[in-house]
């Protein structure tokens, strides 16, 4: 199962400090629903404010983005810019 890594404090508030865990998901969309179930509020938070990096590649908004069984998924704040 893909591993989710949380580095920032904003998500850890939802996971009560847990910073690395596995989720049964094969797409970004499934991941969000999984997270919401495991840690109420986190899925929504990710949906609104977070991007995910799948094996190093940042996805800002992409439900369809595929997750491989051995993927490392990192939750990071969305990035804007000037």
């Amino acid at each position, binding site marked *: 199962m893909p591993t989710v890594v949380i580095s920032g404090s904003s998500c850890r508030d939802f996971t009560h400090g847990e910073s690395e865990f596995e989720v049964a998901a094969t797409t970004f969309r499934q991941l969000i629903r999984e997270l919401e179930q495991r840690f109420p509020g986190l899925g929504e938070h990710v949906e609104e404010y977070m991007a995910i990096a799948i094996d190093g590649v940042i996805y800002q*908004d992409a439900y369809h983005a595929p997750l491989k069984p051995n993927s490392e998924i990192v*939750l990071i704040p969305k990035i804007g810019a*000037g």
Partner: protein
Amino acid sequence: MTFIGNKSDLRVVGTRPVRPDGVDKVTGRAVYGADATMPGQIIGKVLRSPHPHAKIISIDTSKAEKLPGVKGVITSADIPNIPSEEAFVGEGPMNFRDLSLNCMARDKVLYEGHVVAAVAAINDAVADAALKLIDVKYEILPHVIDVEEAMAPGAPILHDNLFTAGVTPKPTTASNVAKQVRFTIGDVEAGFAQADVIVEQTYTTAPVHQAYIEPHACVAAIAADGQVLITASSQGHFMIRAYTAKLLGIEIANIRVTNAEIGGGFGGKTVVYLEPLAVALSKKSGRPVKMTMTREDVFRGTGPTSGGTIWVKVGATKDGKITAAQTVIKLQAGAFPGSPINPALMCAFAMYDLANVDTLGYDVVSNRPKVAAYRAPGAPISSFAAESAIDDLARKLGMDPIDLRLKNAAKQGSKTVYGVTHGVIGYEEVLNAAKAHPHWTAPLGKNQGRGVATGFWFNIGGESTGGVFINEDGTASVVTGSPDIGGSRASMAMMAAEVLGIPYEKVRAVIPDTASIGFTHVTGGSRVTYATGMAVTQAAQAVVEDLKKRAAMIWDISPEAVEWKDGEAVPAGANAGGFDPLPLAAIALKAAKTGGPIGSEISVNAQGAGPGFGAHICDIEVDPETGHSTILRYTAVQDVGRAIHPSYVEGQIQGGAVQGIGWALNEEYIYNKKGHMDNAGFLDYRIPVASDLPMIEAVLVEVPNTRHPFGVRGVGEVPIVPPMAAVRNAIRGAIDLEMFHLPMSPPRIRAAVDAAKAPKAAE
């Protein structure tokens, strides 16, 4: 997606043609925000608060309304009182209630220059007179400008409903600290324990304005049936449409925005200030309303980027391996939450391959204009401190500062503090190019020094729409939703011409209004050539596939038997049949017979933009008696992935570097004790002038971004990240002074020189 960016195959990409909008811009014909007009338009002007922090007791507009020639006066009573709603928009997190309150104050004014009312009148003189007749009663409140003072106990509180997010347990008392965030990997304490050398220091940076030369301007009209037309200069006409709709409660289908040519933005034109007011004034007056800011308005009323306080600690072993890095950053958000604290923390050490990093940040409100995006928001602030500390570390270790960076350089597979593992990046290539550049080893004279610093920016992708349409004569029209702020029409046309195999001159690019093309995010985040370029390239590729089908139809053979070469359809092989090549123009001529108009519009949400890295080398001469610094030579090396139009890529790098030089040496907001900005003009807000500078040599390193068909990486933001530390490190080399505060202005340098002479030197 297939990568088609191999240099040897490219005919158009990598050349330097004249931009399609060029002639209009050198002859004065181009229409910018303030040049746009609507029939019957009248003039709108705003009334700004003279106080940095006050309760609005009452606003009496009756006298103004009675003045002959006044067609309408509005206050917050005329703007919907929308609820707090957070959303992530192109340039970052945004609370639309805050945006509404920033456009027009409701109960409180939160900074000098905060808008409290607006008038529409038949001309400037009447509008000015009307503003003087508006009677606003204020209850003046104590104000706070500085970030540390705003965090101190007992500081005046701006928002009594603002509680620090990101701390547990949830606070019960209101604070000016909107948010606390932290990114951590490894164990910094353990890392510092392994260090032989440690550098620890606190730095400060001043808020600086994007200082685009064109003040904000728009003209807007709302019709009796509720349909709104807006022409404005901005970094995103879809942004203007979305925010105006949100703030005024108008359905998006009822708003059409045309983007005027934009006179610079650098992030500062990714939000609205005037447009909702112009529409509200138009509703009140029944006339189109034109609004234009003065330069003073721009400084007092629009957002600069944050100033901040940055504490940094870096440790390394004798041989120069960095064992731990730590930073605590406090950023001014201005009157409403939303400083770029996340990217500031994420970028600080992103250039390095580090096992132990801890970054803690605070988003702090104070009585200043709400900050807006400015080129790589946050990164220049944290990098100034980090790259200064790395330089001091190199000195302590007796190591060449580029070698120290090479030894710790991030590479493919390096993990960042925010958890992401770098893909294919060009940081080592950039460092090696800088080290190999003759500038790095050129001789220096008395009071002259050389500094180097590096920088990182993520670059983003996002939503873009691009279309390619083949005209009846075989020329092509390219349309995109991205306002052209620095030559992107040229790069879009070049990418399309490359794919179609026709000359650049046969392709013209335009930016239609919001009703005439699919949604496209702001021109920001160095995303246009990447994301919009991706859409245009895919549209051109779809057109080529269609052209092959049309040729097959004309030859009456199967489409698989047709290839596209240099703008012509050719039979795939001998057994496909002995047909003469069919040029694009010939196929276009037969479009009606082969299925109708030929064209494609593609919308993408581009993901995974390739990060960019830069290294800047600066030579400086310091006059120790006056503290005046002169930039003698400047070289900026950057990984650009693939330069579509090298001249405009160099231009981005040169312009970004010079903005950074201004940030380093002279730019700052100067507030007096009353909380008023003392230098709200180009006379005393000192951006670099031509005579302050040498030529800026831009060195393009190309490590293609495999996620873009041509290998593009964003280039617009990286170049503003390294300059402040590069200049600071050069000053240290020149007169052996450690500077910790921006700007490093002559009085500061002279004071540091004197302090160093005095026993127990301390800055």
